[in-house]
């Protein structure tokens, strides 16, 4: 990389300056380095255990540019395999999802179990004895594969710290989200797969940006105002942003929309109220008043470095995204819901989801437009060098619409991208 470039970040805590070079969003060298320094050295979300309920269930998914075959083997164990034949490299499984006893590579007909082990191949007699027993004859597992509360992660770095250590403070927030039921949670059928013509880090920032809501999502709040009685009090409930360590961050706040976890709105009627009351009482019984209030009435936009967002807001969303080019990313999003939820609540959960979220909702398209227009704005990045994310810097406690969360992300990004100052582009310059 070219050493004459300006630093990636400009940070001066004393002056409350935190600036991000716009080059980070456009430079092909940065993009290439991110693949190696960020996506090859982080835990990346693969999928939720509920997506593979039965032995033999499988999903093919692309994670950081690699084809991954996510299976539940005949013994019920989850596996993450590199979707490439050990023989000559063809993608072994070409279906998106399904259930299979084995996988056959169509090129030369090698057959693998759902655990990736070679079962048979045509012309076996031509191979030396013991060939089938060699590790290299099997489909290769992804170097690391770990699970926390049914969230499955993979890493291409075999030396990475264990997932639970990596999650740091995000672990506790995942617990709060998962503790809303004792019955476990499942991904609802239907995947939203979309794209934004912008740099992936813009979506990271946007996902934990409490500052843009009022302007970017003005039309949604118009609708909310006409459908809820308590908007004035709701957003005023406010909230805080937290740096959770290792680049993870969250904002936690009160909001006026109905939460099928246990926050009723008049639009849900009296029948809905008794059901929500019951859900809330159960939470109090299981967790005590204080935690029950937090689970039921607080919203959480949780970001897990580098590319997983779990929004526990008017619905519960899981969203992950990957860069394809400096100015193009692909996004996969799902709805997560308690297994013991009634049909009534499920309907409202999905209704809530679609009203605000997703590429056909009343908010996400405006986010995409904002991000794409940032990317267009970066055409001027050689002359207009910096983004400023210093809002709320130096405060004892950051408000949910301050920019602490973004600073947490960028600090970790910088640490991974430029571990040694001598490696080329300078990191933080005071």
């Amino acid at each position, binding site marked *: 990389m070219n050493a004459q470039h300006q630093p990636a970040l400009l940070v001066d805590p004393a002056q409350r300056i935190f600036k991000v070079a716009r080059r980070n969003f456009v430079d092909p060298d940065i993009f290439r380095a991110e693949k190696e320094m960020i996506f090859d050295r982080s835990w990346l979300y693969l999928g939720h255990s509920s997506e593979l309920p039965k032995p033999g269930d499988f999903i093919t998914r692309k994670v950081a540019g690699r084809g991954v075959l996510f299976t539940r083997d005949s013994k019920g164990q989850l596996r993450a395999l590199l979707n490439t034949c050990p023989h000559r490299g063809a993608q072994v499984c070409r279906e998106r999802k399904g259930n299979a006893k084995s996988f056959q590579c169509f090129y030369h007909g090698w057959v693998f179990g759902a655990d990736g082990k070679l079962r048979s191949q045509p012309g076996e007699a031509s191979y030396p004895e013991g060939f089938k027993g060699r590790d290299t004859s099997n489909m290769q597992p992804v170097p690391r594969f770990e699970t926390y509360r049914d969230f499955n992660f993979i890493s291409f770095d075999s030396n990475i710290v264990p997932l639970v250590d990596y999650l740091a403070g995000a672990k506790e927030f995942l617990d709060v989200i998962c503790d809303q039921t004792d019955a476990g949670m499942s991904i609802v059928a239907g995947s*939203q797969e979309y794209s934004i*013509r912008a740099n992936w880090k813009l979506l990271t920032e946007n996902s934990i940006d409490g500052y843009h809501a009022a302007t970017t999502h003005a039309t949604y709040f118009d609708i909310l105002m006409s459908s809820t009685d308590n908007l004035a009090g709701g957003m005023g409930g406010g909230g805080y942003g937290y740096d959770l360590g290792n680049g993870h961050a969250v904002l936690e706040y009160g909001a006026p929309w109905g939460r099928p976890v246990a926050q009723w709105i008049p639009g849900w009627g009296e029948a809905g109220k008794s059901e929500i009351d019951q859900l809330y009482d159960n939470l109090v019984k299981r967790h005590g008043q204080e935690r029950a209030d937090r689970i039921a009435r607080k919203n959480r936009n949780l970001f897990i470095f580098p590319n997983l967002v779990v929004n526990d807001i008017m619905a519960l969303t899981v969203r992950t995204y990957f860069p394809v080019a400096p100015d193009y990313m692909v996004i996969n999003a799902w709805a997560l819901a308690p297994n013991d939820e009634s*049909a009534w609540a499920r309907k409202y959960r999905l209704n809530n989801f*679609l009203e605000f979220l*997703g590429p*056909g909702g*009343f908010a996400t398209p*405006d986010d995409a437009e904002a991000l794409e227009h940032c990317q267009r704005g970066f055409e001027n990045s050689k002359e207009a060098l910096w983004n400023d994310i210093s809002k709320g810097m130096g405060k004892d406690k950051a408000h949910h619409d301050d920019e602490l969360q973004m600073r947490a992300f960028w600090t970790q990004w910088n640490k991974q991208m430029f571990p040694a100052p001598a490696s080329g582009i300078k990191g933080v310059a005071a």
Partner: protein
Amino acid sequence: MQSLSRTEVEDFLFNEAELLDQWRLPEWLTLFTDDAKYEVPCTDLPADASSESNLFYIADDRVRLGERVKRLMKRTAHAEFPHSKTSRIVGNVRIQARREDEIDVSCVFQTLRTKDGVTDLYFGTSRYRLAVDGEGLRIREKRCLLAGDGLRPSGRISIVL
């Protein structure tokens, strides 16, 4: 309505496409019955999936469809301000079933959308349930089944399909 011809149905659908292309959305909304639904399922769902138990891209009842129109006519609907230019082709129109007071219709759609120098293509099959009375046709259900791989590269459904 046994006598209703495909040409009459086509005229209705072509008119709908024209209203959308001309951004005459409040007028377009009057094509729908009070109990109407407008839905776009995710592309990994079966064509007849229910929006009450599956995640869709869009599942509007008549009230939310009205909100969608109101929103899209505002300059704060940033994704569509300034408005995209769109061009819809509706073809392969078939009357699939006739009942007492409604008919089922399917057609193929191809919608081009241009904004900020970028053109996206949305394509697939639409299934309509059309109410028939003395006044003519109205839409009771419109379900757009996207044939693409998710929403890539089109990215979002900020227009009405």
